[in-house]
């Protein structure tokens, strides 16, 4: 399906939340990198689950438990298909990207990364891909190494290669930057890291919804992402891990479901993925997540990316024409994120005035304080696009920014 064939009006119609006024103006929702809105299919899946077959999964023999279990596992299969995982056993349900990264840090990290070992991350990390490693380094005595970022907002690949050594145990970087939009050359990074004997975790929070994703082809060891950033429910994320790694590493949380047999002397853990899913999981949201995957598949990743790219290009062009506006992050390849600063204007003031015009953007450091320090700024205003956004909305943003500038100067 080509870009021109996408029926955005029909797609928008599937998102009830978009049909409202904020401060008397039609809502323009440009905070999609924080969380996307949810289509009716996802909302209805949640309602259907609670109205029709709410039950605890896996152990129950009764009909509702069977139905809930089967819907829960169908999502696992759908996710496996979506990311081209060799097997659905390699898909672990978590509470989000952050939870997935913490899982890797507290399992693989605790058991395999020790004193003198190094973990490579980058200057563009979200705090979620910094703090879990700092915590690990505190307990295990390993060291963090940081890949620098260029003025354009791209990873310094030569710098990365210099950091790689036989001490590197893990490379953990984002598929795409939440603050700048930069798409990182993850395939190349994975290849180089593997050649050095290191494992790779990709923080896919900003990648999964927008970029082609084939974990088999990437040969990635771990890939983490959240469903709520890809039209699905909040409180639900994924950790993909290669079977041999997941089987080798210890579990993280103890409790029900993750065991095969418990005695006071010894507990035998369950197989993957259940070994990592202690306690009653977030069943309803997992069940509804399948509808989010199907929504993306119904449009097609390629068509979706092409359309979002056209929004990105248009927004970059019209925003750049505003005097005093500077786009932060000018990488050659970006997801649909435009981060900018306005000369002499505080981003909070800009956001307040945009909100009064019905425009939702995000401002601040975007949980990437080291990156903001790198650019010597306190924060940016960020507009991020999803498939239901339109060129007309970008025009409204431009007018909104110009109005704010007029008011504040």
């Amino acid at each position, binding site marked *: 399906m080509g870009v021109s064939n996408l029926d955005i009006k029909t797609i928008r119609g599937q998102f009830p939340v978009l049909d409202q006024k904020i401060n008397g103006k039609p809502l323009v929702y440009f905070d999609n990198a924080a969380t996307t809105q949810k289509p009716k299919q996802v909302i209805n899946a949640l309602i259907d689950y609670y109205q029709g077959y709410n039950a605890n999964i896996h152990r129950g023999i009764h009909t509702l438990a069977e139905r809930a279990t089967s819907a829960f596992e169908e999502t696992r299969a759908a996710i496996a298909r979506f990311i081209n995982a060799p097997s659905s056993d390699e898909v672990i349900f978590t509470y989000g990207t952050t939870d997935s990264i913490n899982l890797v840090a507290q399992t693989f990290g605790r058991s395999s990364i020790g004193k003198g070992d190094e973990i490579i991350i980058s200057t563009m990390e979200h705090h979620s891909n910094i703090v879990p490693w700092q915590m690990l380094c505190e307990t295990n005595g390993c060291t963090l190494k940081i890949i620098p970022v260029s003025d354009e907002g791209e990873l310094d690949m030569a710098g990365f290669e210099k950091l790689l050594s036989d001490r590197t145990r893990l490379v953990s970087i984002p598929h795409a930057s939440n603050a700048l939009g930069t798409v990182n050359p993850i395939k190349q990074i994975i290849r180089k890291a593997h050649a050095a004997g290191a494992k790779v975790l990709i923080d896919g929070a900003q990648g999964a919804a927008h970029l082609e994703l084939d974990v088999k082809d990437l040969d990635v060891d771990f890939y983490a992402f959240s469903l709520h950033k890809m039209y699905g429910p909040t409180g639900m994320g994924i950790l993909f891990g290669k079977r041999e790694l997941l089987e080798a590493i210890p579990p993280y949380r103890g409790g029900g479901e993750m065991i095969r047999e418990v005695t006071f002397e010894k507990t035998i853990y369950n197989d993957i993925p259940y070994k990592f899913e202690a306690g009653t999981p977030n069943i309803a949201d997992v069940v509804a997540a399948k509808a989010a995957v199907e929504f993306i598949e119904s449009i097609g990743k390629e068509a979706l990316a092409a359309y979002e790219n056209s929004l990105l290009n248009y927004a970059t062009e019209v925003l750049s024409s505003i005097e005093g506006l500077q786009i932060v992050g000018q990488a050659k390849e970006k997801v649909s994120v435009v981060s900018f600063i306005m000369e002499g204007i505080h981003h909070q003031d800009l956001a*307040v005035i945009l909100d009064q015009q019905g425009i939702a953007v995000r401002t601040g450091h975007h949980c990437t304080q080291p990156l903001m320090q790198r650019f010597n700024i306190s924060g940016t205003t960020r507009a991020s696009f999803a498939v239901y956004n339109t060129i007309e909305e970008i025009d409204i943003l431009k007018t909104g920014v110009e109005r704010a500038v007029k008011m504040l100067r």
Partner: protein
Amino acid sequence: MTINEKQDEIIENFELFDDPLDKTQYIIDLGKKLSSIDDRYKTDEYLIKGCQSRVWLYAERKGNQLYFYGDGEPEAQIAKGLISMLIEVLSGHTPEEIANSDLYFIEKVGMRNLVTSRRAGGLNSMIQKMKQYGALYSQLPA
């Protein structure tokens, strides 16, 4: 004018505006008019905690009245406007009046809707700081 008379005057001014953007413009313009304070007051001691942008405030007693002086970083215009309005209402009154004031104008003019919930924390901190000055000075001999 009493604190309440000043509040009523501001409420009346705001009633002229239908569009929330006009209210914001009014606040921004107040911020622009705020005279700057000496750099020696632009320190952590006088910084209002909880504001997203940097705003400083200090108080001086003249006779039995307390006077407030505030400033913010040049880019933080809405925050400067908010502190300017609070100074307009509370400055020049007795510490007791300030400490016990009921700032109903904030709700009436929809100031809370003009600030994000994160910034509302900053607004509350501004009010708290001014009332703390009032409470502190009311304990001290004039």
